[in-house]
């Protein structure tokens, strides 16, 4: 049953790597990619938990439902963020988030 540990630790590692990516990468798309993979890391942990919770070969369906919900929520937020990023890029040509310096 150390399948649980392998994937659980993998989820922990992925989460940490993605946090590093969000902090250090300034390109908006990289940040969005990192956030998405961070979501996948959490989902991986949930599915690992579901597998651990199995009874007679049936995995725990509650984390499965949570992951399915989470995937849809994540893609919604991602698509919206991409739409914003692309509009921003089309307006300014920037690929990084710049402050407006309070000017209008």
């Amino acid at each position, binding site marked *: 049953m150390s399948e649980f540990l392998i994937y659980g630790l993998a989820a922990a590692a992925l989460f940490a790597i993605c946090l590093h990516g969000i902090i250090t990468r*300034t390109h908006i798309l*990289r940040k969005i990619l990192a956030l998405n993979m961070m979501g996948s890391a959490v989902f991986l942990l949930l599915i690992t938990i579901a597998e651990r919770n199995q009874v007679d070969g049936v995995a725990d369906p509650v984390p499965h439902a949570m992951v399915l919900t989470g995937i849809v929520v994540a893609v919604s937020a991602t698509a919206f963020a991409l739409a914003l990023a692309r509009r921003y890029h089309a307006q300014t040509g920037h690929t990084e988030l710049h402050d407006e310096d309070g000017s209008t």
Partner: protein
Amino acid sequence: MENRDPIPDSGPIVRVLSIILGVALFGILATAVLDLDVEATGLTDTVMERIGESGVDHPPTAVLLNFRAYDTWLEVAVLLLAAWGALVLRQATRLPEQPAARSPGPVLDWLVRMLIPLAIVTGVYLLWRGTDAPGGAFQAGAVIGAALLLLRLSGYRSIGLFSAAWLRGSLLAGFAGFMAIATLLFITGWTFLEYPPAWAGLIIVIVELLITWSVAVSFVALFVAARPDDSATEPVGGER
């Protein structure tokens, strides 16, 4: 090789601090994971005991559309909001029309003619299967959405599907339909989001159908609306 995104692109101090933070976080998370019991049952038994009352046989579907239907209902609202937000960004009530002059070409035409029916059949199959085996509304919606998108991107004038009223109706269908069913039952005395046992299976199928359609159209809307106005920014004289 074009390198427009120099990596790494933050200062060295930030990088070092971030690595320290990342390693510390990994350590903390690993400790937590190692601390968890390796054997547990969670809610598996609880779900399996009552699955007979849910109207479906596939446990995740039972959880999604009956036991925790509230989550799913709100999740469809999140999707609706994202699509609506993308439309706000375009200041549009409908999706832009596909530039008309693009002709698919024989290969693409053949491919589209083959793929679209296949995708739709796959989608419906996934939906239908979802009641007793892996599959379900969101997967089916994604596949059908991909088919619609392909239809659009390959230059076909879609069937008036994305007029303002159609778009709005399609985006709303899942959330509003789900809400209408739940509200009607609620008014007639049932607990909110409770289905009459005899009707549970049918209601779930209807709700899944509506969600599938909304998911498919939302994905198309998100994909198309995410593009900054191609028509507006194209050089003057270009095709509309």
